[in-house]
């Protein structure tokens, strides 16, 4: 077993010339000091380091890695998490933040159940490392209606779309992103935008009707 305290130490400093950069300093088994820069994703300044925190410094697959505290902009508010920076956003949402509306379906970006909005684009959260989500505007199914129901959600109810419902948060997120970009989405646009969202209950015809209905509603 690893004795964490013997060789784990994580420190962090923000450099003056680039406030967005964070430097992670770590000691490994041989007590050599390693430096690792996390830069591209910290722009925007919302990354914060957890400071010296041996408990959060473990080894992954034989490679030393730090747990980092990050602040995510989710559904219009800041949420702090301490996580392996490579953990997929999906599991951060579900297991660390309790936002279980975003679903796990395949883990390889092929089913669409985990679809969220990243700066308004529909993305598969199982394919996004959480560190890459820092500084981005994230929206999940819980935040799409801003306390009530979004036009797409209302259309989903009006057309009685869900059966088991498990894929529907992902379907709704994909449909919402489509209509924000293409308010006059055609059936071909719908096919293109929704091809990545599997529905095993095969509610596809009602999904299509609901998207058209939501488009009409959103124009009013």
């Amino acid at each position: 077993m690893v004795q964490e305290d013997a060789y784990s130490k994580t420190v962090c400093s923000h450099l003056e010339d680039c406030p967005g950069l964070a430097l992670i300093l770590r000691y490994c088994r041989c007590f050599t000091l390693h430096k690792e820069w996390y830069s591209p994703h910290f722009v925007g300044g919302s990354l914060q380091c957890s400071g010296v925190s041996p408990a959060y410094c473990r080894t992954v697959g034989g490679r030393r890695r730090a747990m980092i505290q990050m602040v995510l902009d989710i559904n219009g508010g800041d949420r702090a998490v301490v996580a392996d920076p490579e953990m997929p956003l999906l599991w951060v949402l579900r297991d660390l933040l309790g936002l279980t509306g975003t679903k796990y379906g395949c883990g390889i970006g092929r089913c669409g159940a985990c679809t969220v909005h990243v700066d308004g684009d529909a993305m598969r959260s199982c394919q996004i490392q959480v560190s890459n989500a820092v500084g981005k505007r994230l929206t999940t199914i819980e935040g799409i209606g801003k306390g009530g129901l979004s036009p797409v959600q209302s259309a989903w109810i009006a057309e009685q779309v869900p059966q088991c419902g498990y894929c529907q948060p992902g379907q709704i997120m994909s449909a919402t992103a489509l209509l924000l970009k293409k308010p006059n989405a055609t059936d071909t646009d719908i096919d293109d935008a929704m091809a990545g969202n599997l529905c095993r209950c095969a509610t596809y015809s009602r999904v299509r009707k609901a998207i058209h209905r939501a488009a009409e509603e959103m124009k009013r």
Partner: protein
Amino acid sequence: MTVLTDRQRDEGGRISRRAFMASALAAGGALVIGITVRGRLHINYAKQSADDPFSTWIHIHQDGRTEVVLNKSEMGQGVYTSLPMILAEEAELDWNRVSVVQSDDSQGTGGSGSVYHSYEPLRRAGAVVREAMIAAAGRRWQVATADCFAKNSRVFQRTSGQSLSYGELVTDARMHPLPQIKDVRLKEKKDFTLIGRHVPHLDIPAKVKGEARYGIDVRVPGMLFAVVAQCPMLSGKLLSVDDSKARIVAGVVDVFRIPSDRSGAEVAVVGDTTWAAIQGRKALELKWQAGAYRNESTASLTAKFVRALDGKEYWNWSNTTLNPDQVPAATRVESIYQCPFVAHTTLEPMNTTVLLRSGKCEVWAPTQSGGDTREGIAKALGIPQKDVIVHVTFMGGGFGRRFGGDFDTQAAHVAKRMMRPIQLVWTREDDFVHDEFRPAFMHRLRAGLDKQGNIVAWSDRLVDTTIIGQDDPKQAQLFEMPGAVDMPYPSQHIRVSYTPVDSGVVRGVWRGVPIAMNVFAVESFIDELAHAAGEDPYLYRRRLFTIAARETAGRVPVKRSGADWPQPDPMRMIKVLDVASQKAGWGTHLKPNHGRGISCYRSVDSYLAQVAEVTVDNGAIKVTRLITAVDCGQVVNMNGLTAQIEGGVLFGLSAALKEKITVKDGAIEQVNFNQYDPLRMHEAPQLETYIVESDHRPGGMGEPPVALPAPSVANAIYSATGKRLRRQPFSVTNEETV
């Protein structure tokens, strides 16, 4: 969320008497048995008296709130709404004020049986409540009950117009003997205000908001997450594991062996997040010893199938003493049809959450049978069933996969070691490799026609990797044969026989079970016979059903399958055939490369016919329209019914066009959706669904629609190309013959 403390719970997971009294008082005297977990109220159906619907089915509170109990599992088929509708209809409840309560340890949900089997019992239970309320009002007003009627959770007196709410009457109603359940008067169809309507599903708002809680969404304070490394081969044993690298993965809490019936042992990795557990499992160094099925492959299985076509019969049914293959006939037709293994791929992978503490076990499970899950977990833990309570959650698809077994047991073993709440999650890869697949099969159909095209002889040899028939051939009648043995077309000499094929692939029930396979063979073959007879496939079927109607009229039915459905009515089949073909414009002109195909079927006393329209361009099959006509007896919820037809039809189409599990070197080859890609939105055809008005008892509709698309599409492809596709998934360019 509240987790029960031991003090709150007595044996069997029921709320303690003291807590029960408190909750009954707090609820204003209503009979409420339950506990608050996930903000929902639970009652244990199995422990209630079926004769007292006030405690079993409908909880009426003095303030008017009404809870209706669901003792089946909601997996997308709509019972969360349809079964409460049946109760509310007869009980005259105010539907807008009804909330649904999922019972713990709920009954097995499958076989398209929830409405079929519950319709009459639920109506009677509802009627008891209505009559008890009317009687209570009659006593209060000192008037005859004939002068009273109930509506919207109120009893009215006709002459005076005065009324009392159910909430005001419930205490009084419960103080007197209830009417006998067999004596209550049921409403007439013309008085229905809910049954038969298009009623919005009660679970949909939560599902579109992301608030509906599936098994995988259960969060219990202090919970950890677990994944299990399972034998990747069809058969094998765990030889060794080196977990040193797994143990130092960030977030991994523990790594240990758990017992496994299949592979001796498996390795559980517990983490503080699902991700950590998955990463830990990746870091395990595992050695497995391959077992008896190490060399099994799709090719070796196919060879076994072909041998079994002439192999020893395990079971047969016949209506003749002659061999149908030797009965004189003007024309003979023979064809072989085959299907591969197919996977369930419920979008929510298998999972179970278990808390074991002080010998008592609390389970949160997306299960099609809370009772079976309870039994399995009690057995795995070696504790009495009464010490296990199963909270049934919403589930992300069922399709026959969620009858428990492996994952329930794994979760129990992990919880036993950890002594804190754990959620066992199967990754998608686990879900594929360790699925219980729909059996692969082969049918060899032979028929003899007379000069008029009538079927004088029919023989069908079914060969499949049986579900349970291998140990007990009699069971084959129930699990493998329906759809084949109850072939609905008239013939004097029918013989259906069955031979199982051994395989290391684990098989199970898949939405429709036998019908999803057998109807493809029978309805494609009938199409072949129609063409051999030189008749139009729709009119040929219609003519044969007319003969069947004449022959079966007034005769005692011959029981062929193990199902308890009534004698088939060929006239109902003719009606749906007529509707489907008329709506589809059967017989109208088709452009080149376009084709139209028809099929029909009856199951769980529902009658269905379907016309498919396809185009075949450069080998690419595109299904453009599916027109389905259904007579399923009395409709309960038109909304849920059409959803089941639309979804079931596409579920069947997906398997027919795209789904195939293959085996190589004793292992399943497809492990995720990049290798096994079910039907997607852009591939879904236009769906048209027509419901035939009917007064018959409601038939089952969860599975029957799955059976039709394979034959209708194969028949349409034949019409478009002249190519007869006898193997699923369909390919115009790669059709081999056996």
